[in-house]
């Protein structure tokens, strides 16, 4: 029987570190590309010249946690270390999940910052017009157990076509309001 190959990050801890540090550096590079001043700010924070910043970013294997936090904070970013169980790839045949995928998923979930908000993610929503949609929560959290709650989203009028399906990222703000059972309150934009 053919054996499945292992991903190159499985060869050594150094390899694994190089790859996940590269993911982080790609996020930093994207931020640096947003504004020319960012590179200058980063150079200042690291106490090096602008040219040296590129050299540092070209060497992911040398990144320390301290540098990661320093680089992120000076560019207005935060950092989380995420350990996760990849149930479909426990042997690491496919390599680590790109950190940008975690960031994108977090944003798509409405960027929850605690477990209250995380539990309150809507399980469905109904579009009212180009400005407003109402979302429905199905949660077994204690907070939601005794009353019906609704999430009302105020979203960017991104699409002209009302038939076009909404995506989570379309929502600009999240408003939550309590209501009587079976009655959803709506906030008109």
């Amino acid at each position, binding site marked *: *029987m*053919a*054996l*499945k*190959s292992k991903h*190159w990050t499985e060869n050594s801890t*150094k*390899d694994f570190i*190089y*790859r996940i540090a*590269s993911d982080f550096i*790609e996020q930093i*590079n994207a931020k640096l590309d947003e504004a020319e001043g960012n590179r200058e700010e980063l150079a200042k924070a690291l106490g090096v010249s602008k040219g040296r910043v590129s050299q540092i970013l*070209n*060497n*992911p*294997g040398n990144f320390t946690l301290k540098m990661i936090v320093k680089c992120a904070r000076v560019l207005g970013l935060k950092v989380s270390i995420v350990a996760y169980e990849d149930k479909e790839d426990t042997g690491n*045949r*496919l*390599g680590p999940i*790109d950190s*940008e995928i975690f960031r994108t998923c977090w944003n798509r979930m409405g960027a929850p910052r605690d477990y209250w908000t995380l539990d309150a993610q809507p399980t469905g929503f109904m579009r009212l017009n180009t400005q407003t949609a109402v979302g429905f929560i199905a949660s077994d959290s204690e907070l939601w157990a005794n009353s019906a709650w609704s999430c009302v989203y105020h979203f960017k009028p991104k699409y002209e076509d009302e038939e076009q399906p909404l995506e989570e990222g379309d929502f600009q703000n999240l408003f939550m309001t309590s209501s009587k059972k079976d009655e959803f309150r709506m906030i008109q934009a």
Partner: protein
Amino acid sequence: MPEIKKCTIKILAGEDHQFRGVGVLICNHEDVNANSIINGMSANERRHLNTSFDYWLLRKNVSKRYHGWNQSDFGGRYVQCFVFKWPENRIYGFLCHPNKQNGRYEFCVLILHDHKTQRLTDDSNLRRVEDIRIQLVASVAQLFLEALENLKKKRDAYGTQK
């Protein structure tokens, strides 16, 4: 230009991937040097390249690491060509769909390494890669199949030793 005679492909990444893979052409030809360059890379250079392969397999958009050429570049002559990059270095290759069981599977065959110091791409490198691509069009599916079989044999042998 010299004719490509006996050659093989070694798979470098994505052999189990659903959509993409990367391999390198091995043959005795003056324009085919990617394999020897990759084999001689430092650990960190190889890690950089492996990371770029990963990103391409993921469909991550990082043109600083790799890109192709479209119809508006060089009169559309090199739309099948592709390059993986790292500071002052380039490895050129071409894209193809050699997997008969999965027509969507896109495979990048690396061919030619060159040092790059100027901003614009040297057309002559692309021309050399395109010439080789044309010579391999008819045989690339067979070469890919043989590469997969070689990989399978190696894994089986490794499994038996363990």
